[in-house]
Structure formats: structure tokens, C-alpha cells
């Protein structure tokens, strides 16, 4: 019995908790992708680098706050920097819309033209972020590190396995819940939110109702800025910031949005968790877990790891390919990409 509980603790500590945190970060990212896709009807490839940009601004503000001695005690200082990061990203997105996307929107260009121009925006942001903050890996989380420490857990409960939850993980879950709840409230209850859904649903009819598409587009970019920057800062607090990693996050984020069904917010959230749980459980070494569950004679000698963590991106990619082959509209019936 105790072996079984230890096995559960191992699984919670190394798979469940990290996957919930990572899944929340992906979900926030995928929500941004899915909203832009729903309203503007294109896949925004600059999403990962927008995330990097927002996180960069937040880091710079955080550093400045730290230098003047302003911190949040046991919470990370980046939480004060976050709103400023969001505001700066909103300005950036509205700016790129004005300079790049609006031109094609007025010409009623094909979605693929938008997507390709977003690749251009991606490269520009890519360079901009590296120019300002550099390509290196950096940590910016301060304050307390753990909510529950592995050693304390062992001492209190008497189990031989440790269980820990760190501060970034818990902040991730709390902020994601707040962000998702307020997003859904906004979309379902407010006039502006409903007009956004109307425009995403049927553009011609929305125009016929007198809904101002340009205004809805601007609001969509602002919400996307809030979601992406939050996702980026949370990921950075959890695992550190590196521009290249953020660029790579584009793949799991798109996989999450497409698995859930592009244009469907609920799907984006589900997709985020599907991707994170698959990625982490496929790259996790189950040796210790099986050690507790299986009888002595069957205990594995090797790591029982399906894929090395170096291949974690391959997991998202494989899921993406499978979904596109067999159910291109995703689990929650979005539009086919």
C-alpha cells in the first residue's frame, strides 16, 4: 500500500504538477493563437516571438524595479512588470497590425498572405528581442522558490518520496484560472465580447449588424497581447527565458490550438493540456514509478523512457500530424486550418 502511494507521489511530482503548469502556459498561448485565427482568419507565426517580446519588456521592468529596491517579497517581482509588458506588447501588436496586416485586410487578401507576412513579422521581432536583451538564457524569478518542499513533505508525511510545488507553478495555475475565467466572461457576457464572436462566426452578417470590424480587430490584438505576455512570463518564471526557446514554443502552441480545434477557445485549453501531458509523460523515465508498482522480479533495469527529452518537440509535431491527418477540425470542431 505504501509503495502504491509512493508511486502516486512520484507520478504527481514529476508528471502531473509539471504538466499542469506547462499545460496552462501552452493553453494561454494557444488561446491567443485561436482568437487571432477566429477573428482575423490567419495563423499568426509571430506568436512565439510576440511572447518573447512581452517577456523581454517584463524582464527589463523587473530588473529596473529590483535595482530601485522594489520587490513583492516572497512573490516574483515580475508580477508588477507583467502589466507593463502587456501594455507594451499591445502597442506592438496594434502597431504591426497598422503597418502590416491592415494593408492586406483592406485588400481582402487570402489568409496565406497574412500568414506569410506574419512570418516576416516573426523574423523582425526575433532580431529585435535578441538585439535588446541578447540571445542567452536568463532567469528573472525572485522571491520564494517553493510552496511545498520535497524534504519537508517527506518529514511531515513520512513517505520516502518527496513532493514539491514551486512558486512559479502555483502562480501559473492561479493566473491561468483568472485569465481564462475573465476571458470567457468577457466573450459570453459583454457586448464587445459577443460582437467578437459574431465577427468570428460570420463576417458579412456581423457587418450587416453594424459591428465595426476594425474595432473588434484592435480589441482582439489587445487580448492576444495580454494572453501571450502572461504565457511568456509564466513560462519564463518556471523555466527561464531564452529567445530561441520561445520561438520553438510556437510548435507546441500551434499543436495545442489545432488539436483543440482552431478558433475554439475551449479547444485551445484542452489542447494545451493534451500536448503538455503527452510531451511530459512520453519523455519521462518511468523506472522509479514502476519500481514501486511492479513486483521485484519484474523491475525494469533501464529508464523506461519512451523518448529522450531532446525529442520533446517531436511529440507535439507527431500529434499535430496525426490530428491534421485524421481530424483536421480538432477535437472541439474548430475550423480546418
Amino acid at each position, binding site marked *: 500500500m505504501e509503495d502504491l502511494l509512493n508511486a502516486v507521489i512520484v507520478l504527481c511530482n514529476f508528471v502531473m504538477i509539471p504538466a499542469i503548469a506547462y499545460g496552462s502556459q501552452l493553453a494561454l498561448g494557444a488561446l491567443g493563437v485561436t482568437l487571432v485565427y477566429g477573428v482575423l482568419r490567419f495563423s499568426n507565426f509571430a506568436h512565439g516571438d510576440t511572447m518573447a517580446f512581452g517577456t523581454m519588456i517584463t524582464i527589463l521592468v523587473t530588473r529596473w524595479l529590483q535595482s530601485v529596491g522594489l520587490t513583492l517579497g516572497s512573490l516574483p517581482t515580475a508580477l508588477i512588470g507583467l502589466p507593463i509588458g502587456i501594455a507594451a506588447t499591445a502597442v506592438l501588436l496594434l502597431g504591426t497590425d497598422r503597418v502590416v496586416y491592415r494593408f492586406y485586410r483592406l485588400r481582402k487578401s487570402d489568409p496565406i498572405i497574412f500568414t506569410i507576412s506574419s512570418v516576416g513579422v516573426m523574423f523582425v521581432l526575433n532580431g529585435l528581442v535578441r538585439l535588446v536583451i541578447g540571445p542567452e538564457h536568463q532567469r528573472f524569478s525572485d522571491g520564494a522558490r517553493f510552496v511545498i518542499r520535497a524534504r519537508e513533505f517527506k518529514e511531515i508525511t513520512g513517505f520516502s518520496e518527496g513532493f514539491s510545488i514551486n512558486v512559479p507553478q502555483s502562480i501559473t495555475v492561479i493566473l491561468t484560472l483568472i485569465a481564462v475565467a475573465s476571458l470567457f466572461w468577457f466573450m459570453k457576457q459583454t457586448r464587445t465580447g459577443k460582437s467578437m*464572436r*459574431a465577427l468570428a*462566426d460570420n463576417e*458579412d*452578417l*456581423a*457587418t*450587416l449588424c*453594424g*459591428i465595426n470590424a476594425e474595432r473588434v480587430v484592435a480589441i482582439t490584438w489587445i487580448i492576444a497581447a495580454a494572453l501571450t505576455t502572461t504565457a511568456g512570463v509564466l513560462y519564463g518564471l518556471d523555466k527561464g527565458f531564452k529567445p530561441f526557446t520561445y520561438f520553438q514554443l510556437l510548435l507546441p502552441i500551434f499543436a495545442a490550438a489545432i488539436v483543440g480545434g482552431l478558433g475554439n477557445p475551449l479547444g485551445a485549453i484542452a489542447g494545451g493540456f493534451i500536448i503538455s501531458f503527452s510531451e511530459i509523460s512520453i519523455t519521462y523515465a518511468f523506472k522509479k514509478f514502476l519500481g514501486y508498482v511492479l513486483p521485484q522480479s519484474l523491475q525494469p533495469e533501464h529508464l523506461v523512457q519512451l523518448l529522450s527529452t531532446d525529442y520533446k518537440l517531436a511529440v507535439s509535431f507527431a500529434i499535430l500530424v496525426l490530428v491534421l491527418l485524421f481530424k483536421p477540425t480538432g477535437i472541439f470542431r474548430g475550423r480546418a486550418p
Partner: protein
Amino acid sequence: MSLLIGENMTGGYEGVDILHQCTVRAEEGEISVIVGPNGAGKSTAMKAIFGMVGLHSGTVWINGEDITRLSPQDRVSRGMAFVPQTNNVFTSMTVEENLEMGAFLRRDRIPETLDQVYQLFPALKDKRRQPAGELSGGQRQQVAIGRGLMTLPKVLMLDEPTAGVSPIVKDELMYRITEVVRTGVSILMVEQNARQALSIADTGYVLVQGKNHYTGAGPSLLQDPDVRRSFLGG
């Protein structure tokens, strides 16, 4: 003076004229119906009145005001509502949200209008929380018409409201449309199903190749031997 007039309209799409000196009117509190064979320009005439089709010449008036150069949205604020033939509901949104979107530009309170629409279409009240995409074809049309009524229009323009629904539902929809007129809204509609439409029409316009062929009271057009022979099949 008619409420809404599209007078001597000539125009069409990308250089090809579909309408030739076509005139259509909607009278206060009446049903006007545009009928005609396929490709006669029925829908084009209606879209031209709503500003969705360019005109070379001709004038559109509402309440004596020349609105020929106004955008469709501006025409909505002048008291016109247009219900397209297809894709006329927000499928992912609930029935009630669809109706609310119809009233998007209104800043006053809308619950009274919602109640009026539910009185006209009782079936919608039971389904108000259901996504419009899950409704049957006839109920969707009711949502679409209801959405149009939410702007409190003087004239409601319907493009083939009974296209693609079963005969029983057609009868029901036609009946509902006559009920709408009783609330004081004028109706201008295009119908494929000429016989039924003319039977409830105060005025009928028979268009052939973008020109007015016959105009007259609906029932009298149904009796007219020329119209019957050339158009209604005897």
C-alpha cells in the same frame, strides 16, 4: 408617396448590368414581392436597394430621402433591415445572442423588442439558449427574420425566406411574415415560390431579365392570363 423606392435602377456586378431600368417599391404596412424566373435579377434588385450592388443610374429613396450613395450600414440606421438568403444566422451563437446582435447599434433597452420577436416566433423562445446552428431550417429563418426585426426597421427585406425548407414549414413562414406586417413593418421580399408569395402580396413585381414585366396587386397578377401563361405555367 411610397415608403421605399428603388427607381429606374440600372446596374450589376463588375461591368455586367443585370438590372435595366428596374423599379421596385415598398408601401407602408404592406407586403411587396419580387418574383420572376431564375436569373431575372430578383435578388440583385433587392441588394441594389440595400446598397450591396452598384448602380449606374437610378435612385433609391426612403421616406423621401435620397439614400442612393449610402452604405448598407447607414441604410440600417435609416430604417432598413436586410435578411440574406444564406448564412443569415450566427451558427455558434445562441438564438438570443443572435437577436441581441441584430440590435447591436441600438443604445436603448431591447427587452421589449425581444419579447415582441418571441411573440411573433414562439418556437424561438423555448430555444433561446440553443446555438442557432442546431436549429432546423425553418427555425433558422425565424431567427434570421427576428434578427432583422431587432433594429426596429420600417421595412424588412427578405431574400427568399422560404428557400430550402419543406412545404409545411413554407406555409408556416408565410403565415409568420403576414403576422410581422400586422405589427406595422413593411415587407419587401424576393420569392422563388411565386404562386404562394403572390397570394399574400399587396403588390407583386414580375421581373424578367432585369426589367419590370408586370406589376400589380398580388392576387390579380395570379389571375392575369399573361402572367399565368408566361410565368406560372398555366
